[in-house]
């Protein structure tokens, strides 16, 4: 490697390219932040990266008034859906890796396909079903939907993870007298922290960021924040308040952004291991 020559022209070019890319990735976020703190006056007279004359939080306040309630909807949908789908995925993965039976591999194949399913093909029947269950336009209905359609990925995560755990561990525990749930709870779950992190982060981003299910299955008061944000941004009536748009977008994006910055490295470590292995 060229590790000894830190200042060779080629290394300089590499660093320059990487830093330029950093700037390109960061600019949208910077623009969003800047705009959200500008006054409408500043937005009209300045440009994307001009420093505001007055820094004002009024955009954020207006945005919170508009989408704050839906923010809590998203919390109410996301937390239970993430926890339930992760738990189910862990149990499924446990069975599919450690307690295979005739047909379990076929089931896994069917499930794998579910990861790639275009949700458009299930929207209509799912909305009929939710209607029958009386869950149309409720956050509970969205929790159910997210659990069902998140199951494929959570199961895949845990199944792949448990496949790399030596089967002898389960055999040893069986000889020690442990049963199905004891082995799961006492042996496997304690060693699943990395994949639990991956699964929680993945499901959190997926469900928090979901728009399709939100817009189809929830209207009015049960809307998640993504739908509320889209409604806010794409209303054609009145004067466009770009500072409010950006502030609302930041509010919608902050929870997942925060999760990424805080726990992103666990996610990467686990996810890439799983994805590369297939």
């Amino acid at each position, binding site marked *: 490697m060229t590790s000894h020559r830190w200042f060779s022209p080629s290394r300089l070019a590499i660093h320059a390219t990487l830093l330029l890319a950093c700037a390109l990735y960061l600019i949208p976020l910077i623009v969003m932040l800047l705009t959200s703190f500008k006054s409408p006056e500043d937005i009209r007279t300045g440009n994307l990266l001009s420093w505001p004359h007055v820094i004002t939080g009024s955009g954020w306040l207006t945005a919170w008034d508009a989408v704050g309630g839906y923010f809590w909807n998203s919390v109410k949908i996301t937390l239970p859906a993430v926890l339930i789908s992760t738990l189910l995925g862990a149990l499924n993965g446990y069975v599919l890796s450690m307690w295979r039976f005739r047909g379990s591999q076929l089931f896994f194949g069917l499930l794998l396909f579910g990861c790639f399913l275009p949700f458009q093909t299930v929207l209509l029947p799912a909305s009929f079903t939710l209607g029958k269950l009386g869950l149309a336009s409720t956050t509970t209905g969205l929790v159910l939907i997210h659990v069902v359609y998140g199951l494929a990925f959570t199961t895949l995560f845990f199944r792949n993870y448990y496949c790399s755990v*030596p089967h*002898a*561990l389960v*055999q040893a525990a*069986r*000889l*020690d007298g*442990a049963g199905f749930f004891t082995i799961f709870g006492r042996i496997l779950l*304690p*060693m699943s922290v990395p994949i639990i992190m991956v699964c929680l982060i993945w499901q959190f981003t997926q469900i928090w960021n979901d728009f399709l299910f939100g817009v189809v299955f929830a209207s009015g008061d049960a809307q998640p924040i993504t739908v509320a944000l889209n409604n806010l941004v794409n209303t054609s009536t009145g004067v466009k308040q770009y500072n409010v748009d950006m502030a609302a977008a930041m509010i919608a994006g902050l929870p997942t952004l925060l999760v990424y910055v805080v726990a992103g490295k666990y996610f990467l470590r686990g996810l890439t291991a799983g994805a590369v292995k297939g």
Partner: protein
Amino acid sequence: MARLELRNVNKRYGSGLPDTLKAIDLAIDSGEFLILVGPSGCGKSTLMNCIAGLEQISGGEILVEGADISAMSPKDRDIAMVFQSYALYPTMSVRDNIAFGLKIRKMPQSAIDEEVARVAKLLQIEHLLARKPSQLSGGQQQRVAMGRALARRPKIYLFDEPLSNLDAKLRVEMRTEIKLMHQRLKTTTVYVTHDQIEAMTLGDKVAVMKDGLIQQFGTPQQIYNDPANLFVASFIGSPPMNFIPARLQRQGGRLMALLDSSQGRCELPLSRDIQGLEAREVVLGIRPEQIVMGGAEGNGLPSIRAQVQVTEPTGPDLLVFVTLNQTKVCCRLAPDVSCCIGDSLALQFDPARVLLFDSASGERLDLAAPACVTQDNVARFTGR
């Protein structure tokens, strides 16, 4: 401790697939050490899993103390197992690893502490009890795995290639320790290995397996001295037994095997006379240490001169390779023998130690005594 008996055990994974285990019959007495040995894929690990109950048998019976346990779940069989990978619970300390089975069985805490202390002392791992498995060396993990098995005081211990993940030096040390432990505790043990030295040194009884069949079941001495067929003869012993194709002739009423080197010929009189083998192609089995330097004339042993092709001094021995009947033959000579490549050596054989195999089927032609313990086993070996 308990007597273990397998009767006609069969294991089949799918209807179209060949049986993984075929009519396995074995019995060991309480306190005996049984070795299951064979190449990978021979079914020895499957058989062990069947005894443990981790896999269901498709036919036959597994008896412990005369009671058939083959339908019971593993936890009720009162069997402990040491795994090749040790299978220590990674998130538990050594203490919890050893205590896990006892806790599940709802043993009172004071009794658990006592038992853990006993086992830890026995295996000299007292100072490791608070550590996690990942903080242990391979040898230490091995001890903990054994400790976990010992703590339950089960009827039968199973070892699944427990030493194969250790380096060579440690493997020899642990082998001796397992033997010492068994001599002290007199536990009924089934031990799977593919290492023939472990098989010879540890076992009271050895079952050599291949393709799901027991090729031979007997004491290590029987297996070594009186192998039932070519496979067993080649599998046990290092350097392996020499197999020399030869033609039989009857001369002066005695059956002779003809040997030929580039430097001479020799007629090896067979110690046992078997009718109907005249002019047959057979395989002579001679262990390298049973070929000696022909020194003083007149000891009555047949002798042949042959040219040394390669020598391999191993330290305790000198391995000398010559060619007999167009086959490379290894002779294990004393290390102080001086011989160089190209030298002509006089070699002698004890006809009483030469084994005779059928070159087509590989079976022994001169089986002296039943090499197997049970009658039906003998029938199976000789009948084919």
